[in-house]
């Protein structure tokens, strides 16, 4: 249960490096590097390049997303940037602008 939660009222400007799951509800500007899963909840704003394991996105990301596993853009997600991942799902209602690189 030692996961990291960046709460809705928190803004981080800088570099975040985590070896564990990260749940973002607030704002990150800079860079987010996670070894494990990243959950970007609805209402979260990330203006940063994001890399990590499995990612679930319901919030807003401006920046490149790199995942060693899968990226799931849920309905309501808003992603502007390139996504590089082994697998990707884009749900109906997700906004996405950028390239997808699945390393085929």
């Amino acid at each position, binding site marked *: 249960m030692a996961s*990291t*939660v960046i709460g809705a009222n928190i803004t981080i400007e800088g570099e975040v490096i985590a070896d564990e799951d990260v749940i973002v509800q607030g704002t990150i500007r800079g860079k987010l590097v996670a070894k494990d899963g990243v959950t970007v909840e609805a209402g979260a704003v990330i203006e940063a390049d994001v890399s990590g394991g499995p990612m679930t996105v319901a919030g807003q990301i401006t920046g490149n997303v790199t995942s060693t596993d899968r990226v799931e853009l849920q309905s309501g997600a808003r992603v502007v940037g390139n996504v590089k991942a082994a697998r990707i799902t884009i749900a109906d209602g997700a906004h996405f602008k950028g390239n997808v690189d699945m390393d085929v």
Partner: protein
Amino acid sequence: MAALMAHAKASHRHVAPRTSSRSGDAAVLGASVRIRGRISGDGDLSILGSVEGDVVVRGDLNIGEAAKVESEILEAHAVTIAGEVIGDVNASGAVRLGPTARVRGDLKGTEISIDEGAQFSGRLEADFELPASLGGKR
């Protein structure tokens, strides 16, 4: 270019957030997390990992035992420190150094308590009125 495959309505196996993240404003920066930069916010914040940079929150700040915080500005309401802090602490509430705290910097707050075992090097500034017999205020 991009090969794009949208598995619409993908299985929702992984969708559910793993933790009870609905505890409102609470923010927890876990033990393995390293942050270099500025953290600001309205809610409470727990730092269990390492932070290099300013921390300004309106709520309470809790610095865990294994945490290491190096900052020029550390501002919060109540501040509870069990870990290592290098930098000045400016609290609008109470500052509490637990027995495992290691702090180098000045502490400012409405109340300051330092538990036995805590290591502290710096100035203390707590606003209170000295009795007139002791010379009143500084």
